[in-house]
């Protein structure tokens, strides 16, 4: 359980979190949504200890973040930042291995290599294991970095826009894998997404941020309403339930309200 109490985070007069409190349960996927520049990434960085908040306390299983010994705190985390460029002369396998940085020595044992290959295999990328990462596409890089984060065997997994470069197939592979592993291994999974439909499908708990405030949180079905989409994004939208009973968001074009005559 990851707990945030009265978090206040600001850069000069840009307030990114204003007295924000929430609890993220283990075994659930928590999805953060909100407009650009609301501090979603900064919130993840604050949880990771890379940004020091002006006020507030962060706990994980009764352990409080200790800014003097961040190494210990960060052991719990698998964190995948937004940037997916990999411009380095390493093979895919080597990049994944780096996920277990502390376990690596000059001579690598078979078990460690097998573990990394296993991580790649689970997301269907083992055939790329020996490729130079500079020859990969953006989406492939993103999947490799996901495998790297899994390799850390985290208790808290934080993904910052993890599907930004993925095609439909790999979106599904990654998010399904994330969902099943989160439940099987009791992780606290936190992810920032922009696609509200993906968020609705995969979130156990949805957190909506705007202007440094937690505007709404809860299950997607409760949270995602036309009113919320309009207040948060300023966009009119229809919210329909799909065949599985999951909200589906369809935005309306500006200035194209259906003319009454067309209804006939």
């Amino acid at each position: 359980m990851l707990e945030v109490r009265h978090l206040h985070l600001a850069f000069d007069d840009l307030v990114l979190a204003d007295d924000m409190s929430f609890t993220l349960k283990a075994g659930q996927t928590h999805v953060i949504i909100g407009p650009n520049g609301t501090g979603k990434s900064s919130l993840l960085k604050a949880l990771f200890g890379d940004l020091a908040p002006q006020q507030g306390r962060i706990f994980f299983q009764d352990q409080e973040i200790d800014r003097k010994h961040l190494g210990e705190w960060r052991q719990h985390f698998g964190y995948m930042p937004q940037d997916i460029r990999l411009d380095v002369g390493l093979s895919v396998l080597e990049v994944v291995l780096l996920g277990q940085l502390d376990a690596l020595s000059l001579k690598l044992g078979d078990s460690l290599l097998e573990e990394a290959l296993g991580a790649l295999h689970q997301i269907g990328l083992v055939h790329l294991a020996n490729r130079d990462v500079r020859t990969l596409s953006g989406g492939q890089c993103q999947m490799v970095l996901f495998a790297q984060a899994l390799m850390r065997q985290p208790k808290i997994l934080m993904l910052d826009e993890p599907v930004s470069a993925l095609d439909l197939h790999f979106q599904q592979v990654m998010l399904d894998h994330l969902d099943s592993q989160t439940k099987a291994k009791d992780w606290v999974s936190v992810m920032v997404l922009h696609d509200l439909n993906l968020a609705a499908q995969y979130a156990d708990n949805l957190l909506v941020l705007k202007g440094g405030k937690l505007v709404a949180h809860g299950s997607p079905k409760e949270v995602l309403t036309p009113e919320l989409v309009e207040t948060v994004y300023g966009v009119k939208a229809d919210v329909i339930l799909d065949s599985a009973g999951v909200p589906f968001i369809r935005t309306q074009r500006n200035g194209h309200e259906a003319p009454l005559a067309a209804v006939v």
Partner: protein
Amino acid sequence: MIDSNIVHSALKAQRSYERRRFLIISLLALLLVLSFVFDIATGPSMISVLDVTHALAHLFGFPVEVANTTQIIVSSLRLPMAVMAVVVGGSLGVGGAEMQTLLNNPMASPYTLGMAAASGFGAALMLYLGSLGLESNVAVPIGAFVCCMLSASLLFGLAMMRHITSGQLILAGIALLFLFQSLLSLVQFVSSPELSQQILFWLFGSLTKSSWTNVSITAGMITLCLIILIKDSWKLTALRLGEERAKSLGVDVTRLRLKTLVLVAIMTATVTSFVGIIGFIGIVAPNIARMLVGEDQRYFLPLSFLVGAFLLSSASVLSKVIVPGALFPIGIVTAIIGVPFFFWLIMSKRR
């Protein structure tokens, strides 16, 4: 669940990639031994390669018959210089490799952040001040070392700050480079023509001042730094994924950066203070190593050493044979052979 065949073949491919890289390292080591022997063999009086190997074997206590003069030339004249070439070339190679890793820029070298300019100024100042009453071959290296470390400590201060980017570090380093270059010009401007000549000669870089004392000091320092660097090899590899990603993998980036910068500064200061400024090896060697084995530091680091050592050792051979009987300053030779080579490297990297 896991398709063991495909995993197994990927594992085997990784192992053979490891073997291949190990082979490349062994090959370079062999080349280095060859150039080392040739380096001892060439000079005003040419010694045959066979005599050199005999003399070396004799030195290590094997019962081999060697002419007395050959033995003396090899062990007290040629050998210190040849060892110095290996140690200096190697540490410039490693210094370059780590600077490039640290600054995330393949154009960086140990000299990028103004360390060479600072040593040059330190040496020049010492020469100008008449060595402060000390013997000049003691005082000048000390001056160069101290000045280089002073300039580097400004960078250490910067590197200790959190959230400073490598780009800002490069800018600060380049500012220092210009500062010390101007200060060096100032010293040259105010000193007599003879002194100015002496300063210029120091700046060229030369292995001729190698004695067993300074060879041992240099070798000791470099070995120590190398051991510490090798221990951090995986962290340094992680750093190349980008600072933010390295942090996400649990690397204390600020600390690693500071530590590596200190080690590179010590290596560079030691080397330049004894042999002056030898250009280009620091840029070229890591780039060759990267092309051969990639950036897994377990291979990249040793290979950068070997390539650097091989380049300087063979430049030393060249410097002795270009003009028979005269000794060309090695710093000039490395830049002259380095530049065309570097151009070729840039062109071949076009995609």
